[in-house]
């Protein structure tokens, strides 16, 4: 069961990381400052430019995580995990299991698999943190 718990907690963390990778993020997003290094120019329409975006290392309760995301045609096509918790063998074992699954789940959320998100009514401020906001920004 512990694996499931870690997977759950880390899914949230990873999605937050991915949100912070968006090049046009509003000022209200979490403090994880993104360091976008896109190849090519950024279009004016709000759609992220093709390229690979590297996120800042983010401390989580299980250790430090850092990811890079690849965007093609406005759609997230790949997530590469650069840094995972690795302080002992058990953590590495869990990370080896959890990270590929997290990547798959994050892609299914941010790729073309869903078109919109329903949830308990958000306010204008809550919208900024919502997955709907991420979908609107990506224009997928």
């Amino acid at each position, binding site marked *: 069961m512990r694996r499931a718990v870690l997977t759950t907690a880390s899914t949230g963390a990873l999605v937050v990381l991915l949100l912070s990778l968006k090049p046009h993020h509003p000022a209200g997003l979490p403090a994880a400052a993104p360091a976008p290094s896109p190849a090519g120019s950024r279009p004016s329409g709000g759609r992220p430019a093709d390229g690979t975006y590297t996120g800042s290392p983010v401390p989580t309760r299980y250790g430090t995580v850092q990811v890079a995301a690849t965007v093609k045609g406005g759609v997230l096509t790949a997530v590469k995990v650069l840094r995972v918790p690795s302080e002992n063998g058990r953590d590495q074992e869990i990370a080896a299991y959890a990270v590929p699954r997290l990547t798959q789940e994050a892609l299914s959320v941010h790729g073309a698999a869903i078109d*919109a998100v*329903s949830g*308990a009514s958000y*306010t204008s401020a809550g919208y900024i943190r*919502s997955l709907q*906001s991420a979908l609107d920004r990506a224009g997928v």
Partner: protein
Amino acid sequence: MSEPGGTGPVSERGGLRHVEHVMGTVFSFDVRGPVTAAVGTALAAAVARLHHIDRVFSPYRPDSAVSRLARGELRPADCSAEVREVLGRCEAARRATDGWFDPAAGGVLDPSGLVKGWAVEDAARRLRAAGARHVCVNGGGDLQMFGGAAPGVPWRVGIAHPLRPGALCAVVSGHDLAVATSGTAERGAHILDPRTGAPARGPASLTVVGPRLTMTDVYATAAFARGAGAAGWLESLPGHEALAVTGDGGSWHTAGFPAYGVPVAAGR
């Protein structure tokens, strides 16, 4: 906000997206496929209408018709046709839910629980009437869809997990579909139990799927207020299915829900 079109770039596939801050929340418009001038005009009109609805129905604006009704300065018979329509729909909703949806649950008239869903459905209908075949309007987490994400492809809507920010608890799909979720994750305990006037103690979140958002949203609110009796009542509603996530991370759904939705991760 800027004019529609300013924040709704036409994508490579055609289509139109627009985000509007109004009624204390955010409305997201997603029109797929070819976009004619008539659809662009209808979007502008739908957005203007949302601001109009807010001016008329907001209980937070002292000069709105709803505030004047609540203070007794205005009689229902003296109201505009659209206010009388909403009051009539509120009364129909109260009867259809055995009183569990009650626009006066807090002691003062507040039709907000019906107005937002009605406004979303109305906006989507106007776009469709203007010729848009594939329309998704999301008002603060409650959605009305027509057509599909592409010809022959259903819309897919993720249901936000109430206990795990950023994660989904299910994905529902369909063509002409309304999805409404009630819960405390975003606004706290804001749904009142009409029997006691105190905050209802419903599940962490309750999602109802149906054909039209006005009543789908009403059913979600009423079922949340019902608490323990919600599951049996929802099962009895024709054309509507539901999924609830409980405070301990468990979940239940009506017998017909799997026809619309797939849980992303089972239970806890």
